[in-house]
């Protein structure tokens, strides 16, 4: 492993001062469930590792009447067990519990879930984020792509966003706060995730000199997540969907359906949103929404099955949300 400097500052300001202007200078460590393997595999070789677990203000979950603030270092286990999350944000709880390893839920954090790097095996195997061969061509379209993207996959990015919480946060219209020495900025969850156009870009809006400090999630909508995972034991979803529904009586006033693990970002399925407005959710309506959500899918050579799985995820998430009281 590449030698690195380690710092464990007590305040956010101290931590921010330790970051670099470019990627590769410093990496932020929280739960470490992704960073350590990136470093062991030589994918990340930071000169400095900045541990933020000791920074108190980055923890905690607080609810107001209209929203919930979730600190970046809240663990997935804390998130899943929080009474307010249980009551008002089941889409987040389900997504957190979908990380079916108690060890990872105990260590992994909300900020880490959002900032973790893609699981694309070409990327993890040292071929770069865009998985290019020595001629600059992506290895994915002609390679082993059964776990890759079926949407937003016209290239050069073909990986899928690995975030468990991302789809729910986008569906719920959450805001993500990013701090730097110059101050803080707020980014809509939908704009936090970015499809990179070159190898030097990242897959989020986070800059190398910033730390993700908290997430603010509006409450009051019915919401649910459904993940299709092959295994009960720790396994990445093959497809997922999160939905948030604003209700008017028994009908949907407005809906946000967001797909997970099918595109380089959590993927807003706006055709499904439009189709659902004004409808009462039944099995048939959920089926139609599911079809609409995947209407534009462009599967690769080995992953057409994910279209079907994503449809099922949308349908089941909608039926689950329709049952909800929140």
């Amino acid at each position: 492993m590449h030698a690195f400097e380690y710092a464990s500052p007590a305040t956010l300001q101290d931590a921010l001062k330790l970051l670099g202007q470019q990627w590769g200078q410093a990496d932020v460590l929280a739960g470490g469930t992704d960073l350590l393997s990136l470093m062991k595999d030589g994918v990340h070789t930071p000169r400095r590792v900045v541990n933020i677990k000791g920074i108190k203000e980055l923890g905690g979950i607080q609810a107001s009447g209209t929203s919930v603030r979730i600190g970046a270092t809240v663990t997935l286990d804390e998130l899943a067990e929080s009474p307010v999350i249980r009551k008002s944000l089941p889409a987040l709880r389900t997504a957190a519990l979908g990380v079916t390893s108690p060890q990872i839920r105990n260590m992994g954090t909300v900020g880490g879930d959002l900032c973790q790097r893609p699981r694309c095996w070409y990327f993890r195997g040292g071929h770069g984020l865009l998985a290019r061969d020595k001629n600059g061509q992506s290895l994915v379209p002609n390679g082993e792509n059964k776990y890759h993207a079926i949407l937003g996959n016209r290239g050069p990015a073909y990986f899928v966003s690995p975030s468990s919480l991302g789809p729910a946060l986008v569906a719920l219209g959450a805001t993500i706060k990013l701090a730097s020495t110059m101050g803080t900025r707020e980014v809509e969850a939908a704009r936090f995730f970015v499809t990179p156009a070159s190898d030097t870009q990242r897959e989020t809006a986070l800059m190398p000199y910033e730390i993700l400090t908290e997430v603010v999630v509006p409450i009051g909508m019915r919401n649910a997540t459904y993940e299709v995972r092959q295994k009960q034991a720790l396994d990445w979803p093959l497809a997922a969907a999160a939905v948030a529904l604003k209700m008017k009586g028994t009908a949907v006033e407005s809906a946000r359906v967001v797909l997970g693990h099918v595109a380089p970002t959590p993927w807003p399925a706006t055709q499904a949103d439009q189709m659902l407005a004004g409808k009462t959710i039944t099995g048939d309506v959920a089926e139609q929404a599911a079809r609409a959500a995947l209407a534009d899918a462009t599967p690769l050579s080995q992953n057409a099955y994910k279209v079907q799985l994503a449809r099922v995820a949308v349908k089941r998430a909608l039926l689950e949300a329709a049952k909800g009281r929140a």
Partner: protein
Amino acid sequence: MPEYSWPPKEKRRLMGKRHDRIDGLEKATGKAKYGSDLNLPGMLHGALLTCPHAHARVVSIDTSAAERMPGVTAVRLIAKAGDEIQWAGAEIAAVSAKTEEQARDAVKAIQVQYEPLPHLVHEHDLQKAGPRAKAAGEVLEGDPDEAFKTADVISEQMYGIPVITHCCLEPHGNVVRWQGDKVDLYPSTQNVSGIGGDLAKSLELPAAQVAVHQDHIGGGFGSKFVADRWGVEAARLSKASGGAPVKLFLDRATELTIAGVRPSAYGVVKLGAKKDGTVTVWESRTWASGGFTGGNSPPIPYVFTRIPNKRQNHSAVSINAGGARAWRAPNHQQACYLTCSALEDLAAKLKMDPVELFKKNADWTPRPEVYRSQIDKAAELIDWKKKWHPRGDSGSSHLKRGLGLALHTWQGGGHASQARTTIHADGTVEIELGSQDLGTGTRTAIAIVAAETLGLRIQDIRVKIGENAYPPSGASGGSTTIGGVSGSTRRSMTHALDKLFDVVAPVLGAPKEQLEAVDGKIQVKGNPAKNLTWQAACAKLGMNKISEMGTNDPKNPGGLTSAGVGGVQMAEVEVDTETGLVRMIKTVAVQDCGTIVNLKTAESQTYGSVIMSICAALMEERIMDAQTGRVLNPDMEFYKLAGIGDIGEIVVYMNMEKEYDDRGVIGLGEPPAIGGITAIANAVANAIGVRVSHVPLTPERVLAALERRNA
């Protein structure tokens, strides 16, 4: 002439009952030390440089930068300029350094230039293998053409079962110290008695100069018999570093890339049968690969070997990937999958219950009555009669249940083993064998047999294994250990007890033939009041001790062990036809293994086997990348293995009826790891109404099969 045979079943106090492992507590608490746990004083760390190309010529290697890296004590070349490398992951060089990180960094600093050459890493499409496929020649028996002409029904289907790895929890590797003319090897091996000689040969040392020490091994499954390159290199690095011990264990990625695989098998099987289900003819065109050296035909038709008319063609496909090693029941899973899936498909075509079809054809097997009775038992335990339905007739819900079965067989005769029993004057009993406990409970089994023979408790026996200084005992492969060590233990204990009787007989005033060892006493048969406690009897040894050998000779097992078993497994699954996800409901394993030494660990062996079968049936496969020539999933993330929630219920039934028990001890490691994959695949076909031709039964394959059915 001492009597060795096992006591009658009703007289056994310990054998055949459920006993905890004698090393269970130390394993559960972490006190048990595996080779990979060792941290010897002054120990250095070794690392391997491996080739990133699937096929390449080495143009040049420059180690000068690595040699100057901090902490580096030695750099050794394994390959040299001009060498042709045949798979990614092949070893190129080895480095030792003060820390693991330094060793890994130094490996990265070695400059190697390769000339990449064309490679082939996939064998599932025989057409694309071209000249890399070598036909083995047709095997013909009877008149298959005529038999197909007269068959009432013909069933033909393609099947595929992929390469998987052993995925040992403790990777391959060792700690080695080569100081002066003596080598100490702390391996992770299935072959304590043999590995030292193997290493000595590579090091050109007299075999007696290699001392092997192994308390525990974290899994082998057939992949850990020899010293391996990493053993030889660790020894040479140690010598080059002034005799400091060197630890060299493979990292997970290297472990899954080069430490052995189970070969694949693909092919089309065509069966002809009468209306009543009797199979009359078998035809198969198969191919397989276990790496660069190709892959032999699995033994097909499996179990149903006496099918009268047969035509078989097989090709071995050479690919540029890490090579095969024995994998828990080598080639039997593949053979079982090709055979028992084809029989299930035939039954479906005949609209016949496969239980009936398998029973009808049991006459084609070497043990028809065993299989028929095992099928009946398994059917009872899984409630087959009530739950089975014709293929695809599984209701309108998207959740569909199905049942499937498969049969298997194995030899499992005991290997050559010698044991030395020592009885001390204070009553202590020691037994020494150059054997190993792969996690199967060998230590405990030795203690049980010893205690049974001496009339003592299990905890009264000190079992000493894991050193090649002990009497030689066979490698643990082929399910040969339990028979081997049970035979040698029984005999050495019987010999030692006989010597003790010589000493005690005059004291008790009875001829030694009249003595027996029961419940911690030596007593006179028929007059138990005349006795000495074990301690008092041993005290008569005074300043002496008894040391006696015992041997298991595979050619002359003398009724203590035998070989050849049958087993039947049945599975119940639930398939979500919207997602293609398969959920295990229940697996039933009915298994014969002769006389059972420890029922608890026998059942554990079978549970573990079923769990491995679930992994292989549903999720486990090595994924190769055609472009880069590398393994894409050499990790525990996308090399998928089941967790507790993926297993469902497992019911194990060990055949302990008299006719099985009378046969002597037979190995169990392999047989129950065979049929489960096929039973599960057959259950899925039964549930969804269509065969998913290739395992693992991943969602994409299940959905594709459903789409074909609906098209």
